[in-house]
C-alpha cells in the first residue's frame, strides 16, 4: 500500500510525466512560459484544480451514472476553475491579466480530465489526492524548467530580476529573440524529452511506422 502510494505520487514527476511522456497540456506549456511568474501561477492553478477535481470526483464516484460521467466531471472541473480564476483576480490581478484565457482553458486541459476519468473514477480519495497532486507537480516541474530557460535566455531576467546584464545596459548578454516566441517552447520541450528518454530507457518507443513499407502496402 505504501509503495503503491509512493509510486502514484512520485511516478508523474519523471517516469510518467504528463508533459514529456503522455504529451498532454502542451498548449498551455507553450503559451504561458515566456516568463517565470505567470508560469508559476499557472502551475499552482493547474495543480490545485487537478488535486481538488480528483478528490471531488473520487468522493461521488459511486453515484455518477456511467453514461453522463464526462459531463459531471467537466462540471466539477469548470466550477473549480472559476473559483481559482476568481482567487487569482483578487490576489494577483496583473499576472492574471497576462495569463488571460489560459486559466479558463484549464477546463479543457487534457491532464485534468485524463486524471479524473482515468484514475479518480476507480480509486479511493487518498490515492486520487496523491495522483492529482503528483500530476500537477509533474506538469509544474516541466513548466518551471521551460519558463526559466526562456525568460533567462530571452530577456536575461528571472521573475523580473536581472540576472544576465544586457548589452544595451553595458553588459555582455544579447537577448535571444526567438526564446520569447512559441517555437522555442517546442524546442525546449523536445530537448527535455530527448534528455529524459536517453536517461530513462524504458520510455523509448518502438518504431511503429516505416514509410517505405507503408507506401508499398497502399499501392498493392
Amino acid at each position: 500500500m505504501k509503495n503503491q502510494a509512493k509510486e502514484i505520487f512520485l511516478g508523474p514527476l519523471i517516469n510518467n510525466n504528463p508533459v514529456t511522456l503522455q504529451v498532454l497540456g502542451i498548449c498551455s506549456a507553450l503559451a504561458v512560459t515566456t516568463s517565470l511568474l505567470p508560469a508559476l501561477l499557472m502551475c499552482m492553478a493547474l495543480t490545485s484544480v487537478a488535486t481538488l477535481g480528483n478528490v471531488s470526483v473520487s468522493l461521488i464516484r459511486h453515484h455518477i451514472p456511467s453514461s453522463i460521467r464526462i459531463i459531471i466531471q467537466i462540471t466539477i472541473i469548470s466550477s473549480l476553475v472559476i473559483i481559482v480564476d476568481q482567487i487569482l483576480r483578487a490576489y494577483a490581478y496583473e499576472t492574471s491579466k497576462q495569463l488571460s484565457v489560459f486559466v479558463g482553458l484549464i477546463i479543457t486541459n487534457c491532464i485534468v480530465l485524463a486524471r479524473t476519468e482515468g484514475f479518480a473514477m476507480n480509486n479511493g480519495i487518498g490515492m486520487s489526492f496523491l495522483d492529482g497532486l503528483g500530476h500537477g507537480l509533474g506538469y509544474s516541474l516541466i513548466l518551471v524548467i521551460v519558463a526559466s530557460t526562456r525568460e533567462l535566455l530571452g530577456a536575461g531576467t528571472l521573475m523580473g530580476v536581472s540576472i544576465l546584464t544586457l548589452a544595451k545596459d553595458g553588459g555582455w548578454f544579447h537577448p535571444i529573440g526567438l526564446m520569447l516566441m512559441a517555437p522555442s517552447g517546442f524546442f525546449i520541450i523536445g530537448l527535455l524529452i530527448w534528455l529524459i528518454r536517453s536517461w530513462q530507457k524504458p520510455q523509448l518507443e518502438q518504431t511503429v511506422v516505416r514509410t517505405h513499407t507503408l507506401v508499398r502496402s497502399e499501392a498493392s
Partner: protein
Amino acid sequence: MLQVSIALVPGILCYAWIMGWGVILQCLLAILFATTLESIVLLIRRIPVKAFLFDGSTVVTALLFAICLSPYAPWWANLAGIAFGVVVIKHCYGGLGQNIFNPAIAGYVFTLLCFPMELSIYPDPGNYPGFLDTIRIINGNFPHYPDAIAGATVLSTLKSGLHDMKMISEISQSPVFGVLAGRSTEWIAALWFAGGIFLIVRKIIKWQVPVVFLGTMFLISLVFYWFDSSHYPSPVFTLFAGGSMLAAFFIITEPVSSSTTPAGRLLFAAGTAIFAYIIRTWGNYPDGIAFAVLIMNFSAPLLDRLTRPRVLGER
C-alpha cells in the same frame, strides 16, 4: 558539391567588392565553424569523419548560410546559425541525406529570429569599413557599430517606403535603387544567375526547377504590377532584388530537402515562389525566400505522395 562552390565564387567576390571584407570573413568563419562542428558530431556519432567531411556538402551549407547572413553580423550570430543548421537540423534528423529542412536556410531563419537587430546591418554599396574595423565589428566590440554602417537594403527601403504611404515612383528615387533592382546589388543577382547557368551546363541541376521558380515569381508580380504599379514593384525588380536569384539556382535545387519526384520538384519550385512573393509583399520581413523554402520543405513529403509516378503495370 565542389562545382556548386565554384559556381558561388563569382557572386561572392562581387558581393565582397560591393559590401566589403565582411562577406569574405563571414564565409571563412562559417566554413571554420561548420567543419569543426561537423567533425565533432561525426566523432560523437562514430561515423567515419574523413569520408563525410570532405564530400563538400558542409562547405556549401556554410557558404550559402554566410551569403544570407548580414556581412557585418557579429561572430556569435554566425556560430549560432551554423550550430543550429549543422547540429540540430542536419544531424539530429539523421545526417546527410536525411534532413527535412535545408540546413543553411533553417540556420539563417533561426539566427534571423534570434537576433533581428544584428542581422539588419548593411553598409551602403561601395562605402564599407576598412579591414581592421570590419574585424572589430564582427568581434562585436566596435562602439555603436550599427551607426557606423547605416545602409539599407533595397527591399527594406521599399517596405518602409510603402509603409509611409509613398508611391513606388517616389521610393525608387532613393539612392539605393539602381536600374533593375538595388544599385550595385543587382550585379550580385546577375552573377548568381551566371553561376546557375554554369551548373545547368555542367548538368549539376535541372533547368526546369529555376525556370519554374523564376517564371512563377515573374507571373505573380506581373499580375500585381499590372493591377497597381504604384504599390507593387515590377517583375524584373522582384527577380533581381533580395534572394530570388540565389534561391532559384542554389537553394531550391538542393536534392535532399526538396521533393524527390520530377513533378514534385516543379510544384516545390512554384510553391516556394508563391510563398516568397506573399511573405515579401504582405509579411513583416523584407524578404520571404527563406521562410518560403522552409514551408515548402515540410510540404515536400506531401508533394511526393501527390506526384508519385505510377508503378509499371499499376492501374
